[in-house]
């Protein structure tokens, strides 16, 4: 290792040659080589982190260049990992760089992450973020979270020394199209530069022990007024109990199995005084509903799910069986131990049978 290269940071009080040694021995995995990933990669590489792995299956596009400053027009159409490797190797020959030109999936996540001390989540979508969280909890690795929305950035260090995880803040993954991504929403070039640099700083703190790691705090950065706000949150111990990955994290799983019961069973459910949740609109409910059914319109399910007793089976019903499936999908992750069912064919099928 070229000691002179790092002298400006090794003369720093508290960091010193000890801190540099810790960086040189560290193995960091960066998930995503885009807006957030580029500053993390560039700084950790420049600062002499011993082994840096990075994973991204994407290619460089022209619309990336205003924020992903590692790449230039000549890289458009090339793999981000291939272009990135070439530039990062030139930037610092001390470090070991490992590129994975693929996406993180349930098949490769545990195997790849296992080989690193710490993960930096610089991905750009919810399924990957939940996959990173669950993998890191299973493997007991801390991970530095960063995410963007417009002029805003969010940052925290999760799963650090028994501290809270991503699921302690957001227990269940948002549904598709609920929250737009950078491609749809737009992003000002410098914002990922700032938030990614803050992520790199947290990674260095975790690795070297300097300062106070941002655990149990969510930092909210607003670039329009230069405000930094820290929100304190606690660990929910059940979120540290993840033992295996979900079968899928994608929004649409073709093989998805929804627990359904046939509308013909409604008679029996009524006789048993089963808990039936009607997720149709108020107008539909007022026109007709099953006796003793509980009315929670689908679009109010999040706010009123407290009305449901999850310790006994829950039967969702709607007019045709579509909305009841959506309701089930919305709640099943958070109530994995509960018995949730969607009534197939809904009230349409039930009324056909009755008439």
């Amino acid at each position, binding site marked *: 290792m070229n000691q002179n290269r790092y002298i400006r940071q090794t003369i720093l009080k508290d960091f010193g040659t000890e801190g540099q040694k810790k960086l040189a021995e560290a193995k960091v995995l960066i998930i*995503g080589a885009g807006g*957030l990933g580029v500053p993390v990669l560039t700084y950790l590489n420049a600062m002499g982190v011993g082994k840096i792995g990075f994973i991204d299956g994407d290619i460089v596009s022209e619309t990336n260049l205003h924020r992903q400053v590692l790449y230039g027009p000549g890289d458009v159409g090339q793999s981000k990992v291939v272009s990135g490797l070439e530039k990062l190797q030139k930037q610092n020959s001390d470090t070991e760089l490992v590129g994975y030109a693929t996406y993180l999936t349930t098949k490769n996540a545990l195997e790849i992450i296992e080989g690193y001390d710490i993960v930096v989540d610089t991905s*750009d979508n919810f399924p990957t973020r939940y996959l990173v969280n669950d993998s890191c909890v299973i493997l007991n690795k801390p991970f530095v979270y960063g995410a963007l929305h417009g002029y805003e950035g969010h940052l925290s260090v999760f799963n650090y020394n028994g501290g809270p995880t991503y699921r302690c803040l957001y227990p269940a993954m948002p549904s598709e199209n609920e929250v737009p991504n950078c491609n749809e929403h737009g992003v000002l070039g410098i914002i990922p530069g700032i938030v990614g640099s803050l992520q790199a700083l947290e990674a260095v703190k975790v690795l070297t022990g300097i300062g106070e790691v941002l655990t149990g705090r969510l930092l909210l950065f607003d670039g329009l007024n230069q405000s930094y706000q820290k929100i304190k949150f606690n660990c929910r111990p059940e979120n540290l109990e993840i033992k295996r990955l979900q079968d899928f994290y994608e929004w649409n799983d073709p093989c998805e199995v929804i627990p359904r019961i046939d509308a013909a069973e409604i008679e029996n459910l009524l006789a048993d005084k089963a808990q039936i949740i009607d997720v149709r609109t108020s107008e539909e409910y007022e026109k007709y509903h099953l006796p003793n059914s509980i009315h929670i319109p689908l679009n109010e399910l999040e706010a009123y799910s*407290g009305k449901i007793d999850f310790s006994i089976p829950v039967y969702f019903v709607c007019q045709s069986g579509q909305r009841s499936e959506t309701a089930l999908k919305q709640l099943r992750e958070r109530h994995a131990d509960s018995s949730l069912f969607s009534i197939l064919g809904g009230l349409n099928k039930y009324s056909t049978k009755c008439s």
Partner: protein
Amino acid sequence: MEVLLFGIAKDIVGRSPIMISGKEAQPTSVQELKEFLIKEFPDFAKLTSFAVAVNNEYASGDVSLTDKDEIAIIPPVSGG
């Protein structure tokens, strides 16, 4: 009651912060605040989960609210 909005919440409402005033409208708990937001801005109902912070601390539904509390609505963001 002043409510700061982040991420998609700010987009739904179109500005941040917002003031909730008038005695009848005043939510007295985090759960009531969530219900109030859904009523006033129906797009909130589309959000699977959004965190609420009271005085810079994450708050569950049963936490009570007063006029002086500093409230923030923090939906998850995914951009990278």
